[in-house]
């Protein structure tokens, strides 16, 4: 089956309905393994036990950015190809990406207080992630404000593509500016700078959170398709009553 065949919402539902419980089950297993790895991970020689916050903070940051990346691809699908599932994907991904970005901000703040002596500084990395969170809130508000889903999709797609500029700013902020936030330590030229005893639990937790992201995204897309069916039936009912 070609990927474009999945563009049909009914076909998507037929695939998503059995896939969601399986993905949920794999997510639970991945978290059980990841949390056990996180508990057994040694303390960092500089940061002590607070390094365990990294197992939440870093996946939150990655998935916050992944969420906007998914929305950006969907925005192209909406504006260029008018893909039937593109605006459904974009709308479903926004609250999930916002939640992971919020998780990144809160856990980062709780990590910053014992390590930096402050919950917040207006450095480039922290500020650009806060901007991403505000962009998410803006797009969610846009979806809720414009009643016609296709008009809302086009407006949200334009904001999403403009907001995508923030993704490279987040990634390279620690290189372009002098920040209190540390530089890249996993995705960088050369090998990661983290010891394997901490890197492995981090990657396992990131995998578990990614599985959760995919499961939630499919479930939220299914909800959005059902919501649009309810809306279509209401309109049909209103046209008969009128």
């Amino acid at each position, binding site marked *: 089956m070609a990927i474009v065949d999945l563009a049909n919402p009914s076909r998507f539902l037929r695939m998503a309905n059995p896939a969601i419980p399986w993905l949920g089950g794999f997510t639970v297993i991945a978290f059980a393994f990841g949390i056990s790895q996180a508990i057994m991970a040694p303390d960092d020689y500089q940061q002590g*036990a607070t390094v365990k*916050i990294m197992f939440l903070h870093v996946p939150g940051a990655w998935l916050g950015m992944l969420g906007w990346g998914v929305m950006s691809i969907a925005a192209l699908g909406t504006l260029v190809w008018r893909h039937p599932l593109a605006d459904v994907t974009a709308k479903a991904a926004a609250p999930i990406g916002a*939640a992971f970005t919020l*998780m990144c901000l809160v856990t980062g703040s*709780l990590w910053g207080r*014992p390590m930096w002596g402050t919950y917040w500084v207006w450095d480039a990395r922290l500020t650009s992630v806060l901007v991403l969170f505000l962009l998410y809130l803006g797009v969610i508000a846009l979806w809720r404000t414009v009643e016609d889903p296709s008009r809302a999709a086009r407006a949200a797609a334009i904001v999403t593509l403009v907001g995508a500029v923030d993704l490279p700013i987040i990634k390279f902020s620690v290189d372009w500016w002098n920040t209190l936030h540390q530089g890249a330590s996993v995705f960088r030229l050369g090998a990661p700078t983290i010891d394997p005893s901490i890197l492995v639990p981090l990657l396992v937790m990131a995998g578990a959170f990614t599985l959760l992201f995919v499961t*939630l995204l499919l479930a939220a897309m299914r*909800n959005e398709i059902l919501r649009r069916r309810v809306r*279509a039936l209401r309109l049909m009912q209103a046209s*008969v009553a009128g």
Partner: protein
Amino acid sequence: MEGTNHLAFILAAYAAACAVVAALIAWVMLDYRAQSAKLAEFESRGMARGAAGRAAMKKAEEDA
């Protein structure tokens, strides 16, 4: 002990992450229940989308 001193921050971070994940799961599940219930209500009134739905609506219109 450094680890003990910072335990409150670690626990708070994990509690915050649990709250975010729980809120997301609850939002998705409750929304699914709500939309499914609305669709079931339409179906119980003989309304469905597609050709069958249009036929049912046409019949309802004629009956009216």
